[in-house]
């Protein structure tokens, strides 16, 4: 998770950019990505047993991890925006609801939330089904991947809303006033003036959230989702290779997170405002 109290502190990747950026604009941290990729390839070719076998075995887990991460992230971006606008709303009911959501979610460990979605949520649905005799509800069974995405989204939406909120508030009041004085509606001012600027401010922390979701998605292996972690553990326990196995799992995550960080830095640089 990002620093909860200060969501606007840029993540490491963004802060390092300045130092790592050479004159021609090349981001030197790509070299680290290449090194990690090279190590994985080297292991696979030099020692096909167990590395190549294991890679082939966890391949579908990589797809599951990416699916869970990307779907959650996209939903988090939407949910976070609504929650942030809710907290900033002048309507006291809406802002209180949004605040309660954020505070509650931030106070419960993610793993517990994931268990709750997977085990508790279906029994609530079934209970409703029994009570009102709705067969579709009575037979409801949790879909592991679906519940995993829901759990991650619900949790990270709260963190994301704080990032959005800080981003929106970081745009000076004068921007909204200038837009309104030109006759734009509140919505138009948000759409054309505030949000485009806020997006640039929040890009580094949002990118950091993507990396966090990617890492925390390993928790969903606890509820029968066959992601990298779970597939890795299966392979390791049948082949008795804890050292090599967990090292390879770690390297795979590292490759993905480092790569994602570079992409974020790249987007960030593309959208930088000339001041």
């Amino acid at each position, binding site marked *: 998770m990002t620093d909860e109290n200060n969501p606007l502190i840029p993540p490491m990747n963004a802060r390092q950019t300045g130092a790592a950026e050479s004159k021609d604009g090349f981001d030197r941290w790509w070299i680290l990505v290449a090194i990690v990729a090279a190590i994985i390839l080297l292991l696979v070719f030099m020692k096909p047993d167990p590395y190549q076998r294991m890679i082939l075995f966890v391949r579908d887990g990589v797809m599951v991890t990416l699916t869970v991460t990307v779907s959650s992230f996209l939903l988090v971006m939407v949910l976070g925006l609504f929650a942030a606008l809710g907290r900033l709303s002048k309507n006291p009911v809406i802002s209180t609801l949004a605040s309660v959501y954020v505070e509650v979610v931030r106070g419960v460990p993610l793993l517990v939330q994931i268990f709750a979605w997977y085990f508790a949520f279906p029994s609530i649905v079934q209970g409703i089904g029994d009570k009102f005799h709705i067969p579709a509800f009575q037979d409801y069974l949790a879909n592991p991947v679906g519940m995993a995405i829901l759990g991650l989204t619900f949790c990270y939406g709260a963190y994301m809303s704080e990032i959005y909120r800080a981003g929106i508030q970081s745009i000076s009041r004068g921007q909204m*006033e200038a837009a*309104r004085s*030109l*006759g734009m509606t509140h919505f138009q001012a948000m759409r054309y003036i505030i949000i485009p600027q806020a997006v*640039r401010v929040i890009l580094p922390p949002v990118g950091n959230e993507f990396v966090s979701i990617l890492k925390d998605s390993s928790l969903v292996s606890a509820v029968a989702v066959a992601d990298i972690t779970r597939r890795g553990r299966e392979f390791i326990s049948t082949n008795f290779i804890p050292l090599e196995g967990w090292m390879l799992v770690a390297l795979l995550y590292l490759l993905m997170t480092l790569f994602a960080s570079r992409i974020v830095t790249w987007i960030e640089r593309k959208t930088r*405002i000339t001041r």
Partner: protein
Amino acid sequence: MEPIIQINNVKKYFGTMEALRGVSLDVNKGEVVVIIGPSGSGKSTFLRCINRLEEYDEGSIIVDGIPLDSTQHINQVRTEVGMVFQQFNLFPHLTVLENVTLAQKVVRGRDKAEAERVATQLLEKVGIPEKAHAHPGQLSGGQQQRVAIARALAMNPKIMLFDEPTSALDPEMIQEVLDVMLTLAKEGMTMVVVSHEMGFARAAANRAILMDNGLIVEEASPEVLFSNPKEERTKAFLSKVL
């Protein structure tokens, strides 16, 4: 002919603090009114009430026959009243040209070509056509303020409000902005200007007003107000400023 701005006994509170304590003012079409006064006297608050950036608690304001009472009326008035801020408030993520065309497109519904034609004309008028594709951050303060004026003019306002438009500028850039404002005044634009630039007031203003403590203390022609004021408070204020 009835005044284009009619302000009647406007009061405004911030919590328990009374920022405006019953201000009335009529401004005729084509008139230039300059407001001076000490810091915290309510000049900005008053100006911002005219286009309802600030809500007032009592009294009434009618702009060009439209009372500032409903959201619809407020938006309608805002399209007719341009405002220029001390801190320019240009949109930093847009180019100069986009700054001047955006509201024309989304509020006035002009197409791109038409909006750009208007913008180019106005950028020429304020003397910086060559900066159309620069970002605000690449301009000097004086240039930014001139773009801000062009941005407001692009909506074809009937009234322009200026809140200390030159007080954030380096001294050598003040005149270029005042020159643009003088031209506007000569062309017959109705203007309400908060500014302590006496030279501008003498050259352009029909009336000068001293505000103090949320009230209009004195109202006269600039010559009289600056050289021969009646009120003690005006004299005291001028002796500090001059």
